């Protein structure tokens, strides 16, 4: 049920097909196709262990795909990883700079590794851009999560890459730092830098131009962010009341309710059949004297629903292969 709504116009910075990676018996990424146009901010979403990191690593040449082909920045993804590495800025999920070097020393090291002219000047400018000038002599390992993330971004931008690959860059970072981070990414995008960013945060997902959603190694959705709610056609009701746990149990039994999830002080019941959903919600809320109103289905519900549908399928598939392996 892969849906393709990605922009067709403009040059493709990432254009890969059939990317597959296995670790032993586990298929971490299965037949991944990704088309990212220049200057786009492409969101990469999916549950933990869905293959996001593996996919990003294959795109930047850190892992060799078992199958697949394509081009990144015009270079062959299988044979030209050196050329790709020179033009890509990759920010790892875990802080991967030298904790025993200072901020400045880390930046200088990266600048030299990329053989950049005027390394000192570039480091100065990078420190200024990211507001790290006063902290440049501080040891990187002692920085807080937000500052480490700023430093990591500065390091992967220092060679002015054409493509940024950011693997959960905002994990463990406070909301203010996250917002600053996204402001920067959008500025880079305006300058023509393409960004592929994986995230678990829905407020970040909606900032992306397009979203690819993968689960269990398979891409389930790939579309412009604005088009996604209509494509999925998910309808939602918000229900509030005294005993929400019981209400949730009851709603799950009702036909037409495909997903029940808790959101703060309310529960959301979702389903694709608008009429059946409304009837079900009204039945339960009348009986339990709850307050219910129709709301717009958010990304969170959409993705939970996508994954939930997939989980059972994957589980049975997994059982089948396990049985085969034993036989």
């Amino acid at each position, binding site marked *: 049920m892969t849906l393709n709504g990605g922009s067709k116009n403009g040059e493709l910075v990432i254009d890969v097909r059939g990317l597959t990676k296995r670790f032993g018996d586990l298929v971490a990424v299965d037949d991944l196709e990704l088309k990212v146009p220049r200057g786009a901010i492409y969101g990469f979403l999916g549950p933990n262990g869905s293959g996001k990191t593996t996919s990003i690593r294959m795109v930047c040449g*850190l*892992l*060799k795909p078992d199958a697949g082909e394509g081009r990144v920045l015009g270079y062959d993804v299988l044979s030209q990883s050196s050329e790709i590495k020179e033009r890509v800025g990759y920010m790892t999920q875990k802080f991967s700079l030298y904790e025993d070097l200072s901020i400045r020393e880390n930046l200088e090291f990266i600048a030299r590794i*990329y053989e950049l002219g005027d390394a000192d000047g570039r480091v100065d400018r990078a420190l200024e851009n990211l507001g790290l000038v006063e902290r440049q002599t501080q040891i990187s390992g002692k920085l807080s999560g937000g500052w480490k993330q700023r430093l990591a971004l500065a390091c992967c931008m220092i060679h002015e890459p054409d493509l940024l690959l950011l693997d959960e860059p905002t994990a463990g970072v406070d909301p203010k730092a996250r917002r600053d981070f996204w402001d920067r990414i959008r500025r880079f995008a305006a300058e023509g830098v393409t960004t592929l960013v994986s995230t678990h945060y829905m407020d970040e997902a909606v900032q992306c131009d397009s979203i690819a959603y993968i689960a269990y190694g398979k891409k389930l959705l790939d579309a412009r962010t604005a088009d996604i709610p209509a494509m999925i056609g998910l309808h939602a009701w918000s229900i509030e009341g005294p005993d929400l746990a019981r209400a949730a149990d009851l709603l799950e039994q009702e036909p037409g309710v495909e997903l029940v999830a808790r959101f703060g002080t309310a529960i959301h019941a979702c389903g694709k059949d608008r009429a059946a959903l409304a009837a079900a919600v009204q039945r339960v809320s009348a009986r339990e004297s709850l307050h219910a109103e129709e709301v717009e289905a958010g990304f969170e519900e959409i993705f939970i629903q996508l994954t939930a549908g997939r989980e059972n399928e994957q589980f049975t598939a997994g059982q089948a292969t396990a049985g085969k392996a034993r036989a």
Partner: protein
Amino acid sequence: MNLFELSWRRVKAIFLKELVQMRRDRLTFAIMVMMPVMQLVLFGYAINTDPRHLPAAVELREDGPMTRSFLASLKASSYVDIVAVARNEEEGERLLRSGKASFLIVVPEGFERRLVRQERPQLLLAADASDPVAAGGVVSAVSEIARRAFAPDFEGPLSYLSASPAPYDIVVHRRYNPTGETAVNIVPGLLGVILTMTMVMITSIALTREIERGTMEMLLSTPVRPIEVMIGKTTPYVLVGAVQTIIVLCAAAFLFRIPFTGSWLAFLAGISAFIAANLMLGYLISTVARTQMQAMQLTFFVFLPSILLSGFMFPFRAMPAWAQALGEALPITHFLRVIREVMLKEAGLADVWGDLWPLLIILVALASLALARFRRTLD
């Protein structure tokens, strides 16, 4: 409150967890099993503190029936292996200096004639005392070796010579270390041991540390090449090696009064190749080990034979052939010969070349292996 109050169920929980972790770390487990096996083999079979089959040369200044049969008996002896027969003094000297022979037995001119006349001729034994342990064994056994070698000659008409004391005198020359001091042998050797220990250990964590700290992923995402990582990561330690070398040389000169008799050029060539080979050995370990702990254990795995099989502690020639072959593969074995020849035996570049080229081959082999093992991806 009670310090000794314990729950066996919790003890069991920890015990089981440790067992599982031990089983996961296959390399550590293998080393723990291999270590005693290796020590048993090395100490039990390879090391022989009662040296036999030491390489010796005979310098015959006369060629009579008695000296010929003496030579034949020497060749049959288990104490020494006659590796060469020198025809003149110069040749004999060269064999001793290059280390091809640890002993030189000189039969002087007119020996046979004077022996028959009971004029107590002299038999000369020049021993390479730069290894006092090896020299000591043969020096103490030399009268017995000579008695046995001459025994067949002293039969029949010459039986009057077989009465004790022996009808000849044995003059022993301890070359390169006349007083037989162990420090003269040990201190130059220590330079090899110290350099092996530190160079291999420091570089063995070169890559494992990057992997453990997660910085390897960042490094691999840059266009850096394996050979650039290798050279960049190991060369800083050349400085460390240079400082250690200077310290040991100063100690040798001023504390132990060990002379430096040979060529500085030969020394520099030897020590450069040796330090580089050790750095590559350590770097190779860092491409094999997955954790810093494993790297340390592998370093000790290299270190043990480096001490036992190199000729540092025990005479190299006294070891069985398989142990000598293993020893030849270690950089330190060749370095020890180079440094002893250079410091004690007035050797020049030409004299040490025989051990310099194996060192260079080891260096190139280790570096190539390390480069081949370097993974450019995270696979």
